Every structure is written in structure tokens, then in C-alpha cells.
């Protein structure tokens, strides 16, 4: 997942804030180079957990926006 360059330019710390917001929502991720967020769950992930992942990350982005 990639943070938009405009958002990064406005606030270079935005990636870290999204990571912390995601953690609050029960998603463990981390920032990568260039404003990326790592999304590479175990390959055994099922549909329900994928939904949990997407909802958590979406909520984290909304929290920081």
C-alpha cells in the first residue's frame, strides 16, 4: 500500500502515524521506503481475515486523514 506523494510532502511522518493507527485497530504493519506500508500476510490467510485486514487499514487511513 502506498501513501500518496502529496500526503507525504505535507507530513513526512504520515506513514508512521498510519502504522500506529493500524496497530490501535489490531493490524500489525510497518512503513517501507518511499511511504509504502507492508501488506504481506501469511499465504494461508482466508477471506474473513482479508476483510479484517482491509477494514483495519482503511480505518487507520481515515483516522489519520
Amino acid at each position: 500500500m502506498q501513501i500518496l506523494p502529496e500526503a507525504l510532502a505535507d507530513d513526512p511522518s504520515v506513514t508512521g502515524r498510519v502504522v500506529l493507527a493500524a496497530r490501535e485497530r489490531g493490524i500489525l504493519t510497518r512503513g517501507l521506503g518511499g511511504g509504502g506500508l507492508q501488506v504481506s500476510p501469511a499465504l494461508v490467510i482466508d477471506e474473513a481475515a482479508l476483510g479484517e485486514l482491509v477494514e483495519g487499514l482503511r480505518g487507520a487511513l481515515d483516522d489519520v486523514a
Partner: protein
Amino acid sequence: MVRFWHPVADMHAVSATGELVLDRAEGVHVWDESGKRYLDATAALWYCNVGYGRPEIADAAAAQLRRLPAYSHYGDLSSRPTTDLAERIAQIAPMDDAVVFFTSGGGEAVETAVKLVRRYWSLRGEPRRTIVVSRERAYHGLAGYGTSIVGTDTFTVGLGPLAGDTLRVPWDDADALAAAIDEAGPERVAAFFCEPIVGAGGVLLPPPGYLEAARRVCRERGVLFVADEVICGFGRVGDWFASTRFGLDPDLVTFAKGVTPASASRSGQRVPGSGHTGTRTRVTRPRRLPRTRTSTYSSASPYPHARRRSRRSLRRRWNRSRRIRWSRRCARGSVSLRRCRSCRRRSPTIRP
């Protein structure tokens, strides 16, 4: 004061906010000490492809710890899990006739790969081929050579001089790669190290045609192509290896995650053609494998090999009849496969 010095961390920030101490894991979830559950979006930094809490892996590890936990694999020494795992990995390698060198993690795999490609050219009578080319935004671990070819300044600030004879090129431009090699002189360039998909640098997919063009640039100039698949390998990109998916036909592959904890146990390189780097079209194989001078226990320790054998569930995929015909004696594990004359007679792929 936090006494545990975390890797890749701002320890002032960690000391201020405290550690997040994880306690247990199952499937795709982990729990911290307070009992809060998290969905682990990273598979613990890309490594845990098969999910947490697999009893077959835990059982295999425990059994091997009791049987033979670790030993040096210098010289002719081996252990059954190590020998078997190398055979199994060779079966899925993205090149023919592969051999496997085990290390302690991805960083050490890159470390050994750089030494292997330089040693290769030395043995081939071209000792001036020492330059290693890598890409901007690339990550190749944080050991000595890896830090010297990393494509992000963050990891090199304040370290002073690093290993020499390295070149950095744009991550997405095969013409720039060709120009850099030509400017340095192809007779000086040992290898091009390439993550098929840049990982820690931001998960950058290769532009269409880039990898194929970069591979062609290397082949035309006699430069070894090293696919760093520490992240991509073992299913992360849909095939066993990205090299297979993109048709790269690499001379050497580094791997780690998916088959080991990221840095706690084993990984390795796969070298084609009886263990020698070199494209099959032009290679005149050295008559012997170069003796490798690497860390003592890195290629050893049957315990993690036993765990990996289980982890990847390769037993089901292991088609003994295709390449290896075991004699009854070897099937019982009583002698080394290579030492068994009966096996060698039955299996043309086994060399003494």
C-alpha cells in the same frame, strides 16, 4: 531504560513509548502480553508464509533438537536433514542442476553470494571482474557487502568507507544498467544483484520488460545475474521463485524468508551447474567447486533444516523417481547418498 537494543529502530522513541511485547501467535494473528490480538499484515517481516502455530513444524523441530541439534558441516560432514533439504530445494530451483549453500539468513546469503561471484571469476582467470552492480532503492541485507551495495543511504550514513568496487544504477532502467557496465568496462564487472521485486525499498514492481532487458544486458556482457529472492522466494509471488515467474534464468539465487525465520536460522544460495556460477551457454565449468570460506555453523545444524523440511511440506512434492532412485540402503538413511555406489549407479543425477 530498554535494555534490548532493537534492530532498525529509533531507540529514543522506543524508550519513550515502551516496547510492544508479543506473546503468542496462531495462523495469521499474533497476541501481545496484554492479550490484544493483531492481524499480522507482514508475516513477521515476510517470512512466515505458512502461518503460525503449525504443529507439524514444532514437532519436527523438537524431535530434531533431541536427536541431533547442530553440528559443523565442514569437509565431508553432513546430517540427514541438511542433505535431504538441499536435494529438495534443488528440485524446485529456478535453474537446472542447482546446488545449495546454506547460510544463517538473507544477509549472510548475500554476503556469501558476493564472495562466490568474485571467487568464480578468479577461478575463471578473470580476477579483475570484481565490481558488483546493484540498484537504487535495493535492499540486500545489512552485513558488510550487503550494506555496501544497498540502494538506500539510510543504511550507510556515518559508517565511513564501505566495500569497494560497487556500482549503483537506477532501479527501473535497463539502458542505464548497460551504460554503467559499459562505462566501468564489462571485463571489470562480476555480477548484477537484483531483487525481482524491490522489497524493503517500497515493494516496487518491475516495469514491463525491465527484468528481461536487464537479464539480456548481463548475458550479452558476460556479467553474472544474481536474483536476490530473500523476499520473493518460496511462494510469495505465486511461483516458488520470482525468477521462474519472470523467466530470468539466474546464475545464482539468494533466499531466506518463507523457508526460515528471517535471521534466526538458515538460508542459502543456489548456484547452477555443479555449483558454479555462470550461464550455461558460455560457461566452461571449473573442474572443481571453489572451497568456500564462510561461517562455521551457518551451513550446518540439522534442527532448522528439519523444521524447514516440514515447513514447506515438500514431502508431497518430492518425486523421488524423477531424479533420484534411492537404494534400499540409503532409504534407511544408513549411508550418505553420494557415497552409496548403488544409488549412483541407479541415478545419473548423483555425482560422487
